[in-house]
């Protein structure tokens, strides 16, 4: 496959604001306030500025073949009209006929956050336009090389070591740090939401469950994050939480990258908690002050309490990461979210500066999921995974009629 698309941004959605403010403002207002007088004569009558801008955006892209279709979206391969060699993914969000409350929350969240977050490790949203029947179309960066889940699962075909894990975790960590720096919680970090670009760069995708940090005292739902990657505080029903939930998910991804199978893969929420107790330790007032006050906290029998695992346990399981890597993993998987490292602390950890150096992205193992895999990954709505695994998914957000 060629390289990732070189997209020429129009001045109105220029992501790299290099010009001085005054200058970029001048450019911007020009493009918004100058209707093209010539072209507005007949077909343009009754067409407002916003409509015209939308049409202009729409005209710039061409949809090619369909890559995948889900209940929530259809994904197409596309290109820039001006550059047929460019590659893009166009995700058309279906208007759900059963959902009568207008634009769905998933679509709103995805558009809202991707519009704001531009970072090399977050899937780029180049443009949004609507087709005439009020469908939303998201023009996304084309990521043809599948996702991390594919690489993890293919233990026969794909070999990798600590240096590769370090490279992937570094990219994931930077993406999540950037989200948190922008007051955004992702709330659905897992290997198949980590897509791979043609050059090997990992990109965090699927912002359908993302939200801004809550204001103090404003409760949030705990029914987020796919179960295997969900932290104990959410399993206990915490309604006030922080970026620590994403750090836990990253910790489980880290563990999975090393083990090459999911670290704690419960079949139910209860089972998930049980597995966490076994693998990491039983949450108690001693190791997590205040935990017993959480709504969903389970009284554990003193005798059945499993002490928090020490470093030896982790070294025996994740020894390939080395003692420093294990140290990072342990701090990402701390039961008490207040003791868990933040995404910033994660990036400041000494593991990154110790041997081995992370593999350069172009040398990372590739599987080549192909465009179809991207279609599969993108057609899901937030939190959704392929058929058959649906029961393990956090999909019960409390939106009333929002979910069919």
């Amino acid at each position: 496959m060629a390289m990732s698309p070189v997209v020429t941004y129009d001045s109105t959605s220029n992501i790299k604001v290099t010009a001085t403010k005054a200058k970029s403002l001048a450019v911007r207002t020009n493009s918004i306030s100058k209707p093209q007088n010539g072209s507005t004569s007949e077909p343009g009558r009754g067409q407002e500025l916003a409509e015209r801008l939308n049409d202009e955006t729409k005209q710039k892209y061409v949809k090619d073949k369909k890559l995948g279709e889900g209940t929530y979206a259809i994904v197409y391969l596309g290109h820039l009209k001006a550059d047929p060699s460019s590659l893009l993914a166009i995700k058309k969000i279906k208007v759900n006929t059963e959902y009568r409350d207008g634009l769905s929350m998933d679509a709103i969240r995805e558009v809202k956050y991707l519009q704001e977050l531009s970072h090399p490790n977050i899937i780029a949203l180049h443009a949004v336009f609507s087709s005439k029947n009020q469908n939303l179309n998201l023009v996304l960066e084309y990521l043809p090389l599948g996702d991390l889940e594919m690489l993890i699962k293919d233990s026969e075909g794909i070999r990798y070591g600590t240096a590769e894990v370090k490279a992937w975790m570094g990219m994931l960590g930077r993406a999540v740090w950037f989200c948190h720096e922008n007051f955004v919680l992702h709330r659905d970090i897992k290997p198949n939401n980590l897509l791979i670009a043609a050059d090997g760069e990992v990109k965090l995708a699927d912002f359908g469950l993302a939200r801004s940090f809550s204001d103090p005292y404003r409760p949030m739902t705990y029914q987020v994050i796919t179960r295997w990657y969900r932290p104990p505080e959410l399993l206990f029903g915490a309604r006030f939480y922080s970026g620590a939930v994403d750090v836990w998910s990253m910790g489980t991804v880290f563990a999975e990258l090393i083990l090459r199978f999911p670290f704690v893969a419960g079949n139910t929420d209860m089972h998930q908690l049980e597995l966490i107790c076994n693998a990491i330790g039983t949450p108690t007032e001693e190791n997590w002050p205040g935990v017993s006050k959480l709504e969903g906290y389970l009284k554990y029998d003193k005798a059945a309490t499993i002490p928090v695992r020490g470093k030896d346990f982790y070294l025996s399981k994740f020894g390939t990461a080395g003692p420093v890597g294990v140290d990072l993993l342990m701090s990402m998987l701390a039961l008490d979210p207040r003791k868990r490292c933040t995404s910033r602390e994660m990036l400041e950890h000494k593991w990154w500066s110790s041997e081995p150096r992370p593999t350069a992205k172009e040398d990372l193992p590739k599987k080549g999921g192909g465009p179809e895999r991207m279609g599969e990954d993108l057609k899901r709505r937030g939190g959704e995974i392929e058929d058959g695994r649906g029961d393990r998914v956090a999909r019960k957000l409390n939106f009333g009629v929002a979910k069919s």
Partner: protein
Amino acid sequence: MTEDDIYRTSTQYRLWSFTRESLASLRSTTNASAADGVRAAIRSQHVGQAGSDPAREGSNDKPSDPAKEVDCLTVEEEQKLVGFYCVKAMQFADFCEFPTNVKATAVQYLKRFYLSNSPMTYHPKEMMAAALFLSTKTENHYTSLRSFASKLPKTTPESVVAPEFLLTQGLRFTFDVRHPHRGLEGGIMELLGLAQGKGQAGPGIKQSSEQLQKEMVDIEPAKESSKKARSADEVVRRIQVAHGKAKEVGKSSALLTDAYFLYTPSQIWLSSLFLADEPLARFYINTKIPTTSTLTPKLISTLQSCAELLRSSASANPGEAEIKALTRIDKKLFKCRNPDKVDLVGINKAQKRDSKGAGENGLDERVIKKRKLEREKSEKEAEGIFGPTLAKETN
């Protein structure tokens, strides 16, 4: 990456920040093109009527252009009207007990929408409910459409979502609004920390926490009439008073003026602190930037001009005279509304129907006729102050 760098990547900066001049020119362009649209629509409607009813047009050879006589709204009148419905949106938000961010975002949605749309094309009364509903969704305060619509008078679920698509298009599919409120809370926490001797000055400033705490007691009073603080406790009380006042500004004039278009969230909250207690605000800034820095006078002058704007705000409770003026504008608007865009519920339905491949010629015409009847009926009913009631479902 500094906070400024991050802010510059936001859509609020990239798409919704302006200079005063560019803002004014954008608004006048929108006004002019909407007025053209109104005239064109009236003209074509008139031609249609003349064709089907030649008796009415007795003097056919004297082509009097009905569109020429239409007295369109000025930019100022549009602004007043939109401002009024922003206030209405805030009142509804309060009535529904929505949190500040929902309210504030809804108001900004309206203001942003009417940068590229005119009330002559889309009446703010209809956009208001759509903006508030959309903001409950984007600000994580989702309320079901049915219960939302039931709280507003003369509102059906259909009339709330019918303009939603237009609204999102007018917002250019950017839903994030960066507010000054969180910044203010942070600043107040820092001030309280300073007052309790736990604060720390920014880089390049050498005062210790204790020194800062002492200096704080000596800040001159907010107003000449009020007395100087004598203890750290009194400083705390002073901060709390300033907090309350600044918060009020953040909930009212910061939203209703063009502050969001012209200034950054941090400039807005600092300016509202400036309005609440200028000496305190200056002290705070001096703990961040050395007084000798060339940045300080620049920042202060920006804050002063922003504070000036915030002070000038139209009140959140329009008086009798204002209501009178608004009534006049709305009456005027009644005569210069774009007739093609009155029935948003119908337009929305038609668009969705078209997309499904149904709704060929015959049906369309029938719908158009039905809609026209509906319109005429609602025009007759239009004796209320703010124009006709919302269009009912046609089928």
